[in-house]
């Protein structure tokens, strides 16, 4: 199956002017400017298959937005090969952009002063969407995203959640095959986030739209993506499924126990002493070495237990450990 996005050894280096302070500094900058280099992306390679819904993670400054800018045709890379939809994005901008969509969490793609519906209607001639397809999509998305109540409201008066839903609709009306979502749930409340996630999943499943999702909210990733890519300092540290990520790195599980009696010493051999508070104890163990069943059996053998709860670490903690300890240094 032909991939829809193909990135090979993508490199992007920025030359930044050294800013020197003061008046003399500005003068010096004019005559003898000095630069330093920022390597935003250093040799990133990956493929996206049609219908993929992939999470693109990394700390701030990792190079995520640079990659997205290259893939949307806004930025020309310093090196490497990029093919998407069979084209080189920045070289054939108008043709390429016709088949992609983009949603940005921090700014809207709609016209600020216009009612939502006017903005959306403008997309029809812009993307040359056949009239009946446009109407059909608009109706469907409008229902799914519940845009009805605010279709006539100017974009500047919308709440964040409303604006995000409108932007999502706008990004998909022309039925792009490839969509980039840059922090689509940022700043939203739980209910709004869920609505957006459901919509994204629906579009991906029903219409087979390939999506690249950049986010800092790892619950988005857990709910939507099977596959994730982790970027740090311009390098791709991980490209694989979430399952495998957890299996390899998710080590620190905890077991919360409520005892039936008071125990002075509740430690288990081979395990760290638990955190104690009255009849409660919390045990930590390395899940890769010790399945939870073994720990539970050991506990049941020694103590009288009233209640038991096994906790996996949130994805966030796993990822944090990966960033911090650079567990995936290639």
């Amino acid at each position, binding site marked *: 199956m032909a991939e829809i996005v193909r990135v090979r050894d993508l490199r992007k280096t920025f030359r930044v002017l050294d800013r020197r302070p003061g008046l003399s500094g500005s003068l010096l900058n004019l005559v003898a400017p000095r630069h330093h280099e920022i390597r935003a992306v250093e040799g990133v390679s990956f493929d996206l298959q049609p219908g993929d819904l992939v999470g693109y993670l990394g700390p701030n400054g990792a190079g995520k937005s640079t990659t997205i800018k290259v893939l949307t045709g806004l*930025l020309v890379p310093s090196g490497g090969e990029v093919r998407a939809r069979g084209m080189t994005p*920045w070289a054939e901008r108008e043709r390429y*952009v016709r088949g992609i969509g983009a949603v940005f969490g921090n*700014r809207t*793609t709609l016209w600020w002063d216009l009612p939502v519906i006017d903005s959306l209607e403008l997309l029809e001639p*812009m993307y040359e969407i056949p009239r009946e397809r446009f109407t059909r999509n608009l109706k469907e998305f409008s229902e799914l995203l519940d845009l009805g109540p605010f279709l006539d409201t100017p974009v500047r008066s919308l709440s964040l959640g409303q604006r995000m839903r409108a932007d999502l609709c706008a990004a998909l009306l022309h039925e792009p095959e490839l969509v980039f979502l840059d922090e689509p749930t940022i700043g939203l409340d739980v209910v709004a986030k869920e609505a957006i996630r459901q919509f994204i999943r629906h579009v991906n499943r029903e219409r087979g739209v390939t999506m690249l999702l950049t986010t800092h909210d790892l619950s988005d990733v857990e709910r939507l993506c099977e596959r994730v890519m982790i970027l740090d300092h311009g390098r791709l540290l991980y490209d694989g499924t979430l399952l495998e990520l957890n299996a390899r790195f998710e080590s620190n599980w905890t077991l919360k126990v409520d005892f039936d009696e008071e125990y002075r010493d509740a430690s288990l051999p081979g395990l760290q002493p638990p955190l104690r508070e009255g009849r409660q104890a919390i045990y930590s163990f390395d899940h890769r070495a010790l399945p939870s069943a073994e720990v539970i059996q050991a506990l049941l053998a020694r103590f009288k237990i009233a209640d038991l709860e096994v906790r996996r670490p949130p994805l966030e903690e796993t990822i944090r450990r990966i960033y911090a300890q650079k567990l995936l240094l290639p």
Partner: protein
Amino acid sequence: MARSLRLYFRLLSIQLRSQMTFRISFWIDMLTTGLLNVSYFASTYLVLERFGNIAGWTIAELAFIYGMAEISFGLMDMIFSGFDPDWFSNFVRQGALDQLLLRPVNLFAQLFGSRFLLRRLGRILQGALVLAYAFANLPVAWTAPKLAYLPLVIISQIVAMGALFMMGSTLIIWTIQPIEAVNIITYGGVEMMSYPASIYSTWLRGLFTYLVPLVFLNYYPALFFLDRPDPLGFPVFAPFLAPAAAGVMLWLALRFWHFGLTHYQSTGT
């Protein structure tokens, strides 16, 4: 091409609609701007009354070049307002240029269509009034060639000054902040063009002849329209260089813009 034009007009109508929704303040705005500009001319007129003429140009003759410059600048300001460096710098800083690049439409059509200031009509109308006064009071024979060349000159002026705006905006891709020097050339330029070029010192006039050829856009054509002799000794065809001057400036502006855009796409600001 046709598609871009259609989209441009569609964007324009959106601009106009949203500007006309603030009904009363729109008219007040236009009125005040018009009055503003009228008062500027009125003050020049009043002073001229006392002196009778300036450098041998009568009030009516002055009204002619003044009115031409005003009408053209007003029209340019209205049409090219998307390229106004002061506004463009905000635009780029907010990342809006990227938004335009993400759409499958010609960038120019979008930029021109992103801003169209109807309230500039005030200045345009004022220019028209001043020009009307000139026509009413000039003892000049308006032959067919003159009448044919007149709109061409106005268009040339619009294009030339629009080119300056465009160059000023292109600079912003490197400097982020608008460069005041550009404002001096555009606003200073229209001020300079409003009076006969013969009153300026040699080097100042040279600046606006050889560096930014605004002298060929208003003064020289005016010599032709008003049947006046040329005190500066330029070749006989000088009055007809206006479209050429505008064309050259536009060409330079477009090349520079293209260069700037390529740079933008390789640095992403």
